[in-house]
């Protein structure tokens, strides 16, 4: 029985071991130990998608605003990662991405102030924060 198990499993284990040391997993593990620009871009893309999903699916207008903040933040992450990459290619003064991120933060703050003002005015008049009940612009 033991012999049978060994003869059956040893090749399988060997295959797994081989995969883990030299195969695709090993390459992925190596890449995971040295995150580069693409990893930052992937994280930015995932945060962006989460924000888009929040805007599209939630009913609470405040959570929709928070999702928009998440989207802007993902854009900032991309800006800064690419700015860092440009610095690594030799342009030490390449900080345009960071400057742009500063402006994105400014516009996000202004947008949050205006948006939350609208939320308060809307709640005072309509007594609701559910976006599917706010349809006064519908003819």
């Amino acid at each position, binding site marked *: 029985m033991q012999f049978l198990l060994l003869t059956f499993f040893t090749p399988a284990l060997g295959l797994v071991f081989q995969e883990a040391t030299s195969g695709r997993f090993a390459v992925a593990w190596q890449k995971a130990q040295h995150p580069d620009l693409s990893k930052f871009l992937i*994280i930015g893309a995932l945060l962006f998608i*989460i924000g888009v999903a929040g805007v599209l699916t939630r*009913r609470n207008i405040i959570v929709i605003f928070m999702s928009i903040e998440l989207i802007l*933040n993902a854009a900032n992450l991309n800006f800064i990662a690419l700015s860092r990459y440009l610095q690594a290619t030799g342009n030490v003064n390449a900080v345009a991405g*960071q*400057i742009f991120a500063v402006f994105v*933060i400014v516009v996000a703050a*202004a947008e949050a102030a205006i948006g939350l*003002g609208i939320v308060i005015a809307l709640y005072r008049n309509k007594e609701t924060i559910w976006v599917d009940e706010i349809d006064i612009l519908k003819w």
Partner: protein
Amino acid sequence: MVLTGWEAVFFWVFSITAIFAGLLTVMARNTIHSALFLISSLVSVAALFILLNAEFLAGVQILVYVGGVMVLFLFVIMLVNVGSEERGSEEIFNRPRQVTTSVIFCALLVAGLLYAINVGYGGLEKQNAARIKDAAAEQQVQEQNLDTSATGNSRITKATERIANSLYRYASLPFEIASVLLLVAIVGSVMLARTLKQEAAVDDVAPDVLQKEAAREPELAKIQTDSIT
């Protein structure tokens, strides 16, 4: 630009935290919990900024977003307190069909973006490999010329200095426009969030609306007569 050692560990910790906190922001039932998860997501992204040598932006992120914008959000959540959501009697997502469609759309978007990033980054890496290697050697030399910090075991970077130079030299016009934008935002939000009484006090309400509201609230009628006399 490749992170190694502890930087890689911190990269994974903070990026996974950012993504999970973002997911929980979208999925939390209680709006306050949403805001707190968003704060933790923003702080994790600020830590990623530090890993990218953008210390100034990390500070701005924490001061402006976490300290300013999120406090504003929390105030508004408290003002617009909706208990039915927390008690679970209200649906927090849209109708199932809308949710399914948007989730499919997002899945397609994420697949497209990941594919594009992989392919694009492969090409970019091939194109810039030689330049990155040259620049890395050059940067090591330049780092030797930086001032040492007071504790003596690290060097003071010039990253923030470079941002300030660019911001005031090349982006000074956008900088001024941004200040005007902030002023407009302040004035606009004050205008939007006035109560009817405050609007009536500066005679900013349509007369028929004011008549109707004054019938319910005697105080408004008093303001009305004051403004007439």
